[in-house]
């Protein structure tokens, strides 16, 4: 059987992450591809949260569960509406709830005199249900807890066995799940992991940032792993973060920063500074639902317009919105490359869904060489001028202190030399045109959107960023039902490529906001008639089922 959705539910701090990780990894080790995602409240302990495993299905979210493992009964009740028909519920059931009751806490207390073992019991139960061998499970658990003493590890393995044994008798043919498996190795990786590693590989050496969900993980990856060689500084605020990063870049250290919408708001003056000073800078904006503080731990695609237009004045920029780890590696390479070559800010939009999801991917790779340096050879410059006017708008760039050539970087409108100017007749228009010429050239490099099964499509779903998995799944399912559906997916969302779209096709846009930002963008940039817009803005990621429901004219899934 294929495509199983497993929710491990509980409250923050209770251990759903541990149980989920052990089970997900054990599945992977048994050859089953998994996709995991998380949803949780903005608090440290308590509340309701879930760790979601989608086994042998596509890398896309599902909002219903085939198995629910509940670590406490409140969570069991909270998530009971997510149960698919035939869902197996196990663990601490809600009062009156049906399923296999396993009193994790009581068992842990009874058998191990400590609540700490409840999670291993739970992992054992779930492993059994999923048909993972007990040995493999125990192995995975030991790997994950390698820091524990041997004694404690042994007790955890016992607890796992207890759980495993406890649940076996209650399983019959219908409740045991058999999953597709293969013998190929998968990488189990999140988009933010991919962003961090690709950035380092691309040559990033500097990041100043201020913690903000869901962007923090990128900085944490650098900070945790000093061998990556990135200078990381937790700035006092986002303004310091972007100014430090930008100036470090001007002084020759390839730099990036990362934040979420509210922090990005504070950075927009710096974005404009990067535009004016022609300084390469990569900025990751990990979206969450707004406005203002909004829902800090949830997901959204609401900051597209802001990413495109944030910052005063006019200057070139690109905005990329990757959808999965491979796409993210590409996007980050492209971002650093464009930043270097066009000497301007490049934004990368991700979101909480991407930050907290792990994808199973095969054949993932990261280029072995960094993005070529955009720095000029100082020996070639005669009298050096940082903003020399050239045909393509691109001036040879030297870093501050790179050589004896003085480099002058200026936020005012400036002469070729980098001094403040008040020359409105020649210098100002020339500098405006120089900057816009770069945008024109950048635009020529924009790749076309990703085409999926559009050849004979009568309906085309248009998406951008994190929703690709769900859209592809929707297309496949609709094709399975005999419908001629395809999709066009945009990873580069600004500038848009020149599009020539067949007119007779029915276009739908699909995005994680309530105002159809991408739909409007398409309309401003080209000639497109949309038949409908699918918008999700409840803080959860777009899933195939809700797309199907919307297309079928049933709005309940999306508007709810």
């Amino acid at each position, binding site marked *: 059987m294929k495509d199983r959705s497993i929710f491990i539910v509980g409250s923050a701090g209770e251990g759903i992450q541990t149980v989920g990780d052990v089970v997900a990894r054990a599945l992977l080790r048994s050859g089953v591809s998994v996709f995991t995602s998380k949803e949780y409240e903005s608090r440290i302990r308590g509340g309701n949260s879930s760790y979601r495993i989608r086994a042998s299905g596509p890398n896309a979210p599902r909002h219903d569960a085939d198995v629910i493992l509940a670590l406490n009964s409140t969570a069991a009740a909270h998530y009971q509406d997510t149960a698919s028909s035939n869902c197996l519920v196990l663990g601490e059931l809600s009062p009156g709830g049906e399923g296999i009751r396993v009193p994790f806490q009581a068992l842990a207390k009874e058998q191990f005199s400590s609540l700490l073992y409840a999670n291993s019991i739970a992992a054992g139960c779930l492993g059994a249900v999923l048909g993972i061998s007990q040995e*493999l499970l125990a192995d995975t658990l030991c790997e994950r807890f390698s820091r524990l003493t041997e004694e404690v590890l042994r007790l955890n393995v016992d607890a796992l066995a207890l759980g495993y044994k406890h649940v076996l008798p209650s399983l019959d043919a219908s409740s045991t799940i058999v999953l597709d*498996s293969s013998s190929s190795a998968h*990488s189990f990786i999140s988009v933010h992991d991919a962003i961090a590693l690709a950035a380092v590989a691309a040559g990033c050496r*500097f990041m100043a940032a201020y913690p903000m969900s869901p962007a923090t993980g990128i900085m944490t990856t650098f900070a945790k792993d000093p061998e990556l060689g990135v200078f990381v500084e937790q700035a006092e605020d986002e*303004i*310091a973060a972007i100014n*430090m990063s930008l100036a470090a870049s001007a002084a020759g250290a390839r730099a990036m920063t990362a934040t979420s919408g509210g922090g990005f708001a504070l950075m927009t003056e710096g974005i404009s500074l990067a535009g004016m000073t022609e300084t390469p800078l990569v900025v990751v904006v990990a979206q969450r639902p707004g406005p203002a503080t909004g829902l800090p731990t949830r997901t959204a695609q609401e900051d597209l317009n802001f990413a495109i237009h944030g910052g005063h004045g006019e200057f070139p920029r690109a905005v990329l919105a990757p959808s999965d780890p491979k796409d993210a590696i590409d996007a980050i390479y492209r971002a650093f490359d464009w930043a270097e070559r066009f000497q301007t800010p490049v934004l990368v939009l991700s979101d909480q869904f991407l930050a907290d999801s792990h994808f199973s991917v095969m054949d993932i790779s990261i280029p072995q060489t960094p993005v070529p340096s955009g720095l000029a050879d100082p020996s070639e410059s005669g009298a050096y001028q940082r903003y020399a006017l050239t045909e393509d708008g691109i001036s040879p760039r030297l870093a501050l202190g790179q050589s004896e050539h*003085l480099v002058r970087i200026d936020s005012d409108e400036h002469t070729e030399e980098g001094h403040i100017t008040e020359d409105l007749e020649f210098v100002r228009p020339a500098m405006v045109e120089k900057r816009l010429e770069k945008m024109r050239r950048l635009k020529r490099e924009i790749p076309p959107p990703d085409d999926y099964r559009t050849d004979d499509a009568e309906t085309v779903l248009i998406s951008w960023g994190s929703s690709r998995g769900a859209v592809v799944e929707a297309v496949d399912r609709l094709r399975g039902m005999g419908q001629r559906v395809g999709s066009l997916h945009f990873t580069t969302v600004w500038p848009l490529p020149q599009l020539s779209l067949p007119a007779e096709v029915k276009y739908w846009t699909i995005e994680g906001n309530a105002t159809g930002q991408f739909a409007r963008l398409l309309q401003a940039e080209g000639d497109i008639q949309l038949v409908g817009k699918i918008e999700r803005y409840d803080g959860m990621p777009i899933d195939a089922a809700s797309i199907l429901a919307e297309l079928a004219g049933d709005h309940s899934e999306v508007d709810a």
Partner: protein
Amino acid sequence: MIPIEQYRTTAENQWCPGCPNFGIQTALKRALGSLNLAPHQVCLVSGIGQAAKTPHYIAAHVFNGLHGRAIPAAIGIQIANPDLKTIVTSGDGCIFGEGGNHLLHAFRRNPDITVIVHDNQIYALTKGQGSPTTRRGEKTRMQFDGVAIDPSQMLATAIVHDCTFVARGYAGDLEGLTELLKRAIEHRGFSLIDVIQPCITWGNHPVAWYKERATPIPTDHDPTHRDRAIALALEAPDSFPIGVLYEKPAREVFGETYRQKVGDGPIFKLPPLAPSIIQSRLKAMQIHPAPRVGA
């Protein structure tokens, strides 16, 4: 000893004729010259304001960024290229007003940069509003009935944060200021020097008023004595004891640990990261199926 002519630039000066900013400019050129810091060894960093135009008038690398944001920029530059002498030269509004938070946190980091505040106690470029150092009660082109709040005390704040070089200079005292600047620039770690710079256009007092109040710190002042240093700092804005208020031996500067790990010198000169490092991280994420034993 580099002659100060070598620090000349082609930029047209935009200050008012006779502005004491010229004094700071000359003193800084002299200090650089006598420290044998050639233009390309220095990076001048500023925000926006009259004072913030200084980097255009002294031959050096220039980062003239956003109003209030000179300090984080200087920190970024210093980390990216520790070989440069990175010197911030900007206004009181820029550094104590819009940029106050950055100064506060720079004390904590102790980056090896020098911050020169052109303290004219006014927002000059925007035409005469009160700045954080304007005395209470003084009338300005925004505070028509007089500034109704107390001045910032950022030198005292530096001292309570144990900033290892805190000084006050006077723009009209070329010799003295040159010396102070030399010491500040030579100091390893963060050095803050507030330079009293009368604004002859928007200021409320004639230069003489300032000159009178800009008296040298008594020679018996012990710059390691915190309480006395604070007391001297807090004499402003009624009087301006000139000299080094507080000085402590250098301590660990910002970024040292990083440089110890990856190597000294500019980051752009570092060899690229060994690809094996990335590959090993990727590999750690790879999961190979084990033979299944069945449930």
